[in-house]
């Protein structure tokens, strides 16, 4: 071939390449992070894109409040990202993409994520919307160093809420700690202890029936603990409405003896506390009915308004595959929301003995969950109830209303919101 011919052939090849080379499909993945999970997911996605150069995934790592406040409005408008990591899985279920006909092996998903699919799909549906990036369970953390220094014995498994309250008060008084017991300002965190006291939450018709003797027993304790100085108004009394207020910073600063939050804090405490003091999760305190926390978690779901459902399903299949999920859970220190991995066990990547002990405790707590606690995440009116509970009990703690008025208000608020949602 002459030089001119070769040049023309090369030019033709180059042009044909330019014309026919396909741009990769771009997927937007909305994500939030409590700990290091954003970095881990970015690593995994880089690997996925190497294996699938036809798909580009943009990870939008945003604040949790963006997902909580802005994503619902986007979804209502029929817009949004292609995938999202979210905690309000049930409330927004009508917006999820059904992956059943798009994924390679629906049986794998049913087998490994089946226990949690009802948490993220509309009532009565058999759709497969996504998988759990983490199973969470509420429970307490204690500062063991403070207990040791105070010479107070750590209450063991089966200890009641009242026994714990007495113990943490002794420690705080002995050590001059400002907050003996802190609980996240959240109706969700309150629900587990209330179920332990005998609260039923769900009526026989599936409608909310929140106020009963078990609920009152826990609410009265919260109010009296604030009065006795066992709990500080800095957490429940400091903000308004259903605003979440945690005590994670106070716990990390050794200003709290016992902190009731949940398993998602482990990774953060491993980083913020390190070996500054000895901390660990302890079993959920008991009431007369149970010793339970409340399960929950975050999941990744496909959004049904995506223009690329097949690519979304391909990515979901890859992310939910056993080796990828194993790596994700082990590196993020999350409890597995995958039946196979939960059974096989995980090798968490941490040398911190507090982390190992806490993970062991929470894994055991999963097996001790009360049946009602397991039902709550799939209940349609759970989040509405949690919001009403914390709004009104927050006002009780702030001295704005009596407990009896708060009970009436909680019922009114829930009725109003349920009827508004049903219109």
């Amino acid at each position: 071939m002459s030089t001119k011919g070769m040049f023309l052939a090369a030019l033709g090849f180059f042009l044909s390449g330019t014309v026919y080379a396909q741009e990769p499909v771009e997927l937007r993945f909305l994500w939030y992070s409590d700990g290091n999970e954003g970095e881990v997911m970015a690593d995994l996605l880089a690997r996925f894109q190497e294996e699938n150069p036809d798909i580009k995934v943009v990870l939008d790592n945003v604040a949790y409040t963006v997902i909580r406040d802005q994503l619902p409005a986007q979804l209502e408008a029929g817009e949004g990202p292609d995938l999202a990591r979210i905690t309000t899985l049930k409330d927004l279920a009508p917006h999820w993409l059904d992956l059943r006909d798009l994924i390679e092996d629906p049986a794998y998903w049913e087998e490994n994520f089946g226990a949690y699919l009802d948490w993220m799909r509309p009532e009565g549906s058999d759709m497969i919307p996504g998988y759990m990036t983490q199973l969470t369970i509420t429970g307490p953390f204690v500062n063991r160093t403070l207990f040791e220094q105070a010479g107070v014995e750590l209450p063991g498994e089966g200890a009641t809420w009242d026994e714990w309250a007495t113990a943490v008060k002794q420690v705080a008084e002995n050590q001059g700690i400002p907050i003996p017991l802190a609980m996240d300002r959240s109706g969700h965190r309150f629900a587990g202890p209330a179920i332990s006291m005998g609260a039923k939450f769900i009526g026989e018709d599936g409608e909310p029936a929140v106020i009963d003797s078990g609920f009152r027993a826990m609410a009265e304790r919260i109010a009296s603990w604030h009065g006795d100085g066992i709990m500080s108004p800095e957490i429940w009394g400091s903000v308004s409405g259903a605003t979440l207020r945690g005590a994670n910073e106070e716990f990390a600063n050794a200003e709290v003896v016992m902190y009731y939050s949940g398993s998602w804090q482990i990774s953060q405490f491993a980083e913020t506390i390190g070996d500054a003091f000895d901390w660990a999760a302890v079993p959920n305190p008991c009431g007369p009915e149970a010793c339970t926390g409340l399960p929950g978690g975050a999941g990744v779901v496909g959004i049904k308004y995506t223009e690329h459902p097949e690519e979304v399903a391909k990515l979901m299949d890859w992310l939910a595959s056993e080796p990828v999920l194993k790596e994700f859970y082990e590196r993020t220190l999350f409890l597995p929301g995958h039946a196979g991995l939960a059974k096989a066990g995980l090798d968490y990547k941490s040398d911190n003995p507090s982390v190992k002990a806490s993970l062991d405790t929470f894994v055991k707590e999963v097996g001790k969950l009360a049946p009602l606690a397991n039902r709550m995440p799939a209940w349609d009116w759970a989040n509405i109830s949690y919001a009403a509970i914390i709004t009104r009990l927050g006002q009780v703690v702030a001295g704005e209303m009596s407990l009896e008025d708060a009970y009436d208000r909680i019922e009114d608020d829930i009725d109003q919101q349920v009827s508004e949602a049903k219109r």
Partner: protein
Amino acid sequence: MPHREASSSLSGILLAPLRGAMAIVDIPMRWVQRRLGTGGVAAAFLAPNMLIFGVFVLFPMFLNVLYSFTGGGALYLDSRVFVGTEQYETLFECRDYLDPASCREDRFWRAARNTAFFVVVQVALLVAASLVTALVLNRKMRARAFWRAVFFFPVLLSPVVVALIWKWILQRNGLLNAMLSEAGIEPVLWLVDRNWAMFWAIFVAIWAHLGFYTLILLAGLQAIPAVLYEAAQMDGTPRWRVFTRITLPLLWPSLIVVILLALIRAVQVFDEVFVLTGGGPGSATLFLVQYIYETGLAQQARNLGLAAAASILMAAVLIVLTLVQLSSSGWRERKEKR
């Protein structure tokens, strides 16, 4: 003279392209003016701005009115249920309007009461503080520009930054409690005590906006002719009389602007206080905009209809306040002309 001529010819050369451009623009402008008249040209110039105002302000306000007559959880208006005045009835269902606890939507009335208190106290203190600061900064003093910058600096900060700075100062382990501890005084939970929380909400809002209103008043003070003060001085007029008979009347137009802007801003208070106190403790610093935000956007079941109704009521209050303010200013001007 030759120097002036040279400079004038140089500026003529430099301005020539501008004159050329203006001559080119002048041709279509004259044609437009002939076709539309002077008023029409003014309207044409205003049209783009009015279009933006219409699309981004008037149309959403109109939509808001429509939403306030609907219910349900849907976002789009055509999917929502028409409920008539039900949302307004919910807001107004009270046994005693002075007791929020007796109202069905008690948080709305708590927010309204807090907002009313905040508006009255914060605006009064802010205007007084701005006036005093402007009077002081208008005097001859050493490093006057520096002091003016000091008072104006907080205005440049984002409201969130302002709130975070003060939160850091006021929290249990914050700067203020550290200073109290040094002095042997027990730390105070400034943002957990109901009265202190409102105090700090007002204080921080004043601190953040003082510089802006001071600047307006300072400009007003500098526009007052110095000869009036000189004449008063020659007459031996007491300083208080100079203030009430010269400064205050001539500053009145600037004061009206300051009061009006401060009033509107106070009714709309949200960002600083939301970050500083979150509306708490309880609902001690819950204001109307936060109530509307939480009801319409932040709740699990978003009640857009109720939030829209509340925001229409708030807009009505703002319109009434503005009209009262403008009419009082007009009345004063008419009185002065007489």
